[in-house]
């Protein structure tokens, strides 16, 4: 669907994307993740033919974007929300694009109602809120009823209600069988929406895998609270198990709860709490991207 092969892009001295390769499988929602400045936008803009890579190539539906016969009918993109003339109405902005792509004018009204922007469509974009601009961007992307959608940080600047609306909207688009590539610097923002993730950092691939695998791969810890935390720490350490103190008399232990409970029982240590400390998504993300920085 989307394929990136050995993509490299340099801006002056800054290496924005460094020999990056990944694929977006058809019919999935893929989260494209990385901290700010990881090279996500540059990669997406290369895929869309807006940025010229220094090396490597990108294809959409098997061909470079520029060779797509009717690009807006194949790929819809939502990049920055501000890429609209402030003096033009939302509806006219869509009409201009529809005209360029040979899309009938009636489609403009359809996409406006799809993103729930019909009422404001005759107003000039200058007066739109950020959420309305994002929805106008989505309407643009949907003009050609494309099979592939590319969205760059679509949740940026949206309020919680807006993010929720966006999530539901993207799910309904995916349910129609579209493939979606969605970038974000906040993993939790997309974790409920995506099937797969591609994680990059400093322009390099860190991981590409199903989201479930990424979460499973993150080893959780056992949380244990005991009045005799010090002795328990010594016993665990003696077995080579890593222990960190979370709070007073509360430990995070890098071992299964069963092992911790049995060791405590064998040594007559009273436990007040024993449970699994699941790594949060952000911790997983941080862990994965931190590994890259310390190289």
């Amino acid at each position: 669907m989307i394929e990136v092969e050995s993509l490299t892009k340099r801006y002056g001295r800054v290496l924005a994307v460094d020999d990056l390769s990944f694929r977006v499988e058809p019919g999935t929602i893929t989260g494209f993740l990385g901290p700010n400045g990881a090279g996500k936008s540059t990669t997406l803009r290369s895929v869309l033919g807006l940025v010229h890579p220094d090396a490597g190539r990108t294809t959409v539906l098997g061909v470079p974007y520029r060779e797509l016969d009717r690009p807006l009918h194949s790929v819809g993109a939502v990049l920055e929300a501000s890429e609209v003339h402030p003096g033009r109405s939302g509806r006219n902005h869509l009409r201009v694009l529809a005209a360029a792509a040979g899309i009938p004018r009636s489609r403009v009204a359809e996409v406006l109602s799809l993103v729930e922007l019909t009422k404001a469509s005759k107003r000039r974009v200058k007066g739109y809120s950020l959420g309305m601009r994002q929805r106008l961007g989505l309407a643009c992307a949907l003009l050609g009823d494309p099979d592939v959608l590319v969205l760059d940080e679509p949740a940026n600047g949206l309020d919680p209600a807006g993010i929720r609306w966006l999530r539901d909207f993207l799910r309904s688009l995916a349910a129609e069988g579209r493939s979606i590539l969605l970038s974000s610097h906040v993993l939790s923002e997309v974790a409920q929406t995506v099937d797969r993730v591609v994680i990059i950092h400093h322009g390099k691939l860190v991981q590409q895998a199903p989201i479930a695998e990424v979460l499973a791969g993150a080893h959780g810890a056992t949380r244990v609270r005991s009045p005799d935390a010090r002795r328990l720490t010594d016993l665990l350490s003696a077995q080579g198990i890593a222990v960190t103190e979370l709070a007073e008399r509360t430990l995070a232990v890098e071992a299964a709860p069963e092992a911790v409970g049995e060791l405590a029982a064998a040594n007559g240590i009273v436990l007040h709490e024993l449970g699994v400390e699941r790594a949060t998504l952000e911790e997983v993300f941080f862990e994965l991207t931190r590994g890259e920085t310390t190289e």
Partner: protein
Amino acid sequence: MSALVHSELLKIRTTRSWWAYLVALVLLTGAGVAGEIGSAGSADRSTLGFQEGLVETVGVAVILAVILGITIVTTEFRHGTVTPTFLAAPHRERVMAAKSAASVVVATGFALLSLAVVAAVALPWLAIVDAQTHLGDGELWTRAAQQILAAALWALMGVAVGAVVHSQVAALVGTLVWIFLGETLLLGLLGLLDAEGVAAYLPFRALDAADGTGGDDLQSYGPGVAVAIGWIALLGALGTGRTRRRDIS
């Protein structure tokens, strides 16, 4: 290609500056013609030369045409609309060609509207003061046609300049300073070097000859148009190359 031209025309018509262009065109042309007739002696008003001068008031459309040409390219970079534009039409040279075509259409419209204003002010006025008109004279119509062509050429030059200099302010200010100051200074310099002949080949001196007004033009009409087209082709090719290579990020 016609879809892209249609899109470009729609872009021009869907912002408020479109109305500003039309209002400026009508008011400036109207004021220009009224000033010419009002300040002329009654004997002058009946001469062909004077009435040719009235047609040359369409020069307002020529200046607005070059501003429009620059703006329809640079506004895309100013507001970032170049991103959706190039997503819809990834072959950027086609977008530049569509902008050129649209600018010619609009510039021609500007010149025609300006001519209509000249006629609407001058014909009744000249009739009232019993001046003899030269509407049957081919010279007057040739002058009008040359004004229309000049507006189209200046618009194309504007598009070419905008394609080279993507910053709106730099392109607009730079062009106006170049027209009114740069070439005049160069003219003086070339005079000192005893090379005035070269001055005729400066881009806007050549374009100046293309409106057929004669007077202080350095070029005669035909060569002037040819040199102007040469400059447009050169800057257009440079600008298209630059626009194609640019990373839209």
